[in-house]
């Protein structure tokens, strides 16, 4: 049975899920949700996801939302298929969780708000807040300095292999480096840059990027 992913192939959180499904070789079907038209805030969609956000997955009768819960589920369900994205030992799994939390709590909001200011507001004809952009950029620089330190000691965030922790960063970093014009945040850091090159040239991500952009 094909997994239905409700969302848009261009939106960051659905991309997190799609990248995982592609890595694990799990077949899916994208069910378009028109975010520009506000489809995700309408009653019919709220029945699927009460917070009015994408993505949602339907796998037969089983439904899930929250992209980071969905990727954890599929990485566990198909642990023996495709690359192991979870880690092997309890300790490795804990480090994967740690860096997934870092992405969620230390990086995501900064990246999201930068993209909002630099890409989304201008598209909607609104002015961005230059002081806020500067502030966000400085904070993100500080966070990426920590990543630089980590990746100078470790090939990937949680250890020697690519895991969900690295995957979770792909959509936001891609938006930051492309549409938001903030590529220097990555390219000016030797180890972060090398890590970005490795994770963004994985076939699954390249396939998704070609579908999306």
């Amino acid at each position, binding site marked *: 049975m094909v997994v239905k992913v409700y969302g848009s192939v261009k939106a960051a959180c659905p991309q997190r899920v799609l990248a995982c499904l592609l890595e694990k070789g799990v077949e899916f079907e994208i069910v378009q949700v028109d975010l520009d038209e506000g489809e995700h805030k309408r009653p019919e969609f709220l029945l699927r996801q009460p917070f009015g956000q994408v993505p949602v997955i339907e796998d037969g009768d089983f439904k899930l939302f929250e*992209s980071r*819960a969905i990727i*954890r*589920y599929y990485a566990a*369900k198909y642990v023996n298929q495709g690359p192991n994205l979870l880690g092997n030992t*309890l*300790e490795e799994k*804990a480090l994967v*969780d740690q860096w997934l939390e870092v992405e*969620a709590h230390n990086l995501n909001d900064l990246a999201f708000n930068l993209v909002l200011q630099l890409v989304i507001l201008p598209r909607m004809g609104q002015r961005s807040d230059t002081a806020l952009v500067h502030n966000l950029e400085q904070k993100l620089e500080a966070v990426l300095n920590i990543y630089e330190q980590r990746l100078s000691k470790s090939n990937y965030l949680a250890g020697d292999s690519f895991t969900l922790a690295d995957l979770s960063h792909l959509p936001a970093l891609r938006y930051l480096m492309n549409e938001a014009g903030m590529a220097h945040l990555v390219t000016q850091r030797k180890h972060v840059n090398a890590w970005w090159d490795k994770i963004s040239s994985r076939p699954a991500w390249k396939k998704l990027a070609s579908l999306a952009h």
Partner: protein
Amino acid sequence: MTTLIKLYGAPVSTCTARVMTCLHEKAVDFALVPVDLFSCEHKQPPFLAKNPFGQIPVLEDGDLTLFESRAMTAYVAEKFKEAGTDLIRHHDLKEAALVKVWIEVESQQFHPAIAPIVYEYFVAPIQGKSPDQGVIDANLEKLSKVLDVYEAKLSSAKYLAGDFYSLADLHHLPYTYYFMKTPCASIISERAHVKAWWEDISSRPAFKKVSEGMNFGEK
């Protein structure tokens, strides 16, 4: 021989409390190593070697050092899954997934709305500032919408992920505990199912042990 888990943090700290509650639920022995927040011990090099983000708590279990409280609770709940309360439903992949959904909801929807409110009432005054009503009002509005979803969910099941207490419920304890001491507590108590859920989860012995130490700002 198993080593004793060390938890670096402070009893008044929400994120430290989150991990301590989990350790108590699993009946796991640990040592709380105090970190002096007021002298900014957590921002200085010896501590930064443990958590480069300069935040508490940090968990040490033998050679493993972890930061991020929700990664710690996941680790403890998994390592000790056969002991104490079953917080992660590891026998059932789908139940386990639903627990993860509501863990993410706490992390992505609930926390961002409640944390600034708790900050304004508890931390800002210590820095000599009055609570920013604009920030409080904006986040109360967001939190109210989130709690509307919780009210609907909790009218059809006793706990967030189903009819079983889980890590998803536990993660809400520390911030909500402090929130209930603010003038904004009514948005919890005016929602019947949310109120009943809160009373249930906050009266669990594991949390009661921890909340005794959560006296931030009290004289």
